[in-house]
């Protein structure tokens, strides 16, 4: 069991409230996933690339990190430290050098993207939300996850969302049964998962399909053919998000749409505080059917 929440804003006036709305949804899903929590939030894309990194010893790891990275890249880098995470803005084209530099310093890369930032930690969702001050974050869309761990350990790297390509992230409720086989296939194809987690394999699979030319819909449809197990997936991209459930569809999912937003939740409870929910169109996504919203 895990909890998933997602919010895609159609009304730009709500953007400053995205974090507030998503945090309430996330905390409501605490009893579906008390082990760890995470959120991917998509803001307006700045020039350049944002790298979200995590450290268990943030004070010493992040001290002077921006200056060191600036010197290494020969370009200006800005840094925003958020608890155990730091978001570094680097110039386009400096990606590979920056990632190598950061990994060499023992930092964990949570995700990269023009507009995506990822914050995830072990702990109850309200604690994780408070650490990162998720409520204060604005943006166009976001995805959150509360994890009850089954397939890999309760660690920061085992928390969702998983990002395996720029501005792409995946959250999952369920468990995959062919992830070891898929891990070998994906590693051979050049998309090696970094953790023991099954969801990361699915994220690598989708990223590999998109890299090969599939659009988001095709990549999500591919999960129905190539991934075995239980899943409700919600996938975030720079422009929107997609949803797909396995054909058995025993992992719950509900969606709501108004003129202002499209919302996803593992349960209706997550929607209870959303504005205008009483008049929203609420429905359960069909099994083996891909849904996506893009701007």
């Amino acid at each position, binding site marked *: 069991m895990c909890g998933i929440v997602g919010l895609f804003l159609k009304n730009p006036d709500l953007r400053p409230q995205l974090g507030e709305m998503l945090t309430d949804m996330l905390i409501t899903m605490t009893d579906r996933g008390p082990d760890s929590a995470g959120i991917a939030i998509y803001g307006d894309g700045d020039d350049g690339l944002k790298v979200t990194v995590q450290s268990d010893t943030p004070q010493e790891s992040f001290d002077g990190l921006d200056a060191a990275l600036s010197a290494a890249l020969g370009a200006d880098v800005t840094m925003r430290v958020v608890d155990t995470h730091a978001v570094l803005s680097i110039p386009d084209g400096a990606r590979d050098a920056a990632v190598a530099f950061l990994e060499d310093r023992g930092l964990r890369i949570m995700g990269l993207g023009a507009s995506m930032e990822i914050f995830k930690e072990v702990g109850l969702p309200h604690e994780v939300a408070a650490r990162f001050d998720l409520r204060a974050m604005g943006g166009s869309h976001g995805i959150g996850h509360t994890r009850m761990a089954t397939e890999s350990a309760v660690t920061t790297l085992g928390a969702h969302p998983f990002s395996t390509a720029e501005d792409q992230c995946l959250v999952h409720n369920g468990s995959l049964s062919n992830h070891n086989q898929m891990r070998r296939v994906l590693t051979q194809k050049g998309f090696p998962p970094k953790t023991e987690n099954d969801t990361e394999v699915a994220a690598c699979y989708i990223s590999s399909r998109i890299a090969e030319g599939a659009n988001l819909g095709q990549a999500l449809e591919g999960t129905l053919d190539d991934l075995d197990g239980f899943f409700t997936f919600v996938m975030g991209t720079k422009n929107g998000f997609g949803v797909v459930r396995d054909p058995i*569809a025993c992992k*719950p999912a509900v969606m709501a749409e108004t003129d202002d937003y499209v919302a996803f939740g593992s*349960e209706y409870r997550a929607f209870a505080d959303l504005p205008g929910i009483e008049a929203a169109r609420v429905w359960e996504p069909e099994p083996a059917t891909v849904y996506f919203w893009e701007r």
Partner: protein
Amino acid sequence: MTATAIAETDTGVQTLDMTETPLREVNETLQAQSASTNQTRFVIENPRGSHAVAVGLDAPIEVTVKGSTGYYCAGMNKQATVHVTGSVGPGVAENMMSGTVIIDGDASQYAGATGHGGLLVVKGNASSRCGISMKGIDIVVHGNIGHMSAFMAQKGNLVVLGDAGDALGDSLYEARLFVRGKVKSLGADCIEKEMRPEHIALLRDLLDRAGADAKPEEFTRYGSARKLYNFNIDHAGDY
């Protein structure tokens, strides 16, 4: 129970507001009613998708839930009439024994699962596994139902005004299935059967009780071919 948690109105309807009254108190209040209770009408406000609302009732009371609920609403119901004005999550009226449960919106998976008796009416759609292992309950769905509905259904009637998903009635026992729309596929050992006068009469009564505007003659009946009842070595591959 705090005095402020219950607002009794002149009309004899007791209102339980779930923003003020915890779920357990709501359910304990409803479960405490006896067959001879004078308080027969209750309204639950602000369920906000809560789980297990109005479960385990055993008195001839009427409960209106204003809004949508989560898992297992009206589970194990006996005698009571529970009316939800919104939609319900998985397992509504699970293992119902008697009484009536009416959902104005949609029902998520396994609505009416294992129900022994009573009537479940879903005015919207019901998703997968509706009526799974039903044992005597009557279920009327005004909209569509999802895949694997009436799986191993033993007794009772499942009536669907819309369409049914894949594998309807897989491994069916003696429940009767009536579908007005299309059936995407039938499950193992589920077959179309003739509509005899007694089926038309049964269906007319059920549609009438469920407030459904449909003619019994428009429905097709499905039931068990009874070929899985006994082991057949020639069909070993089918089991």
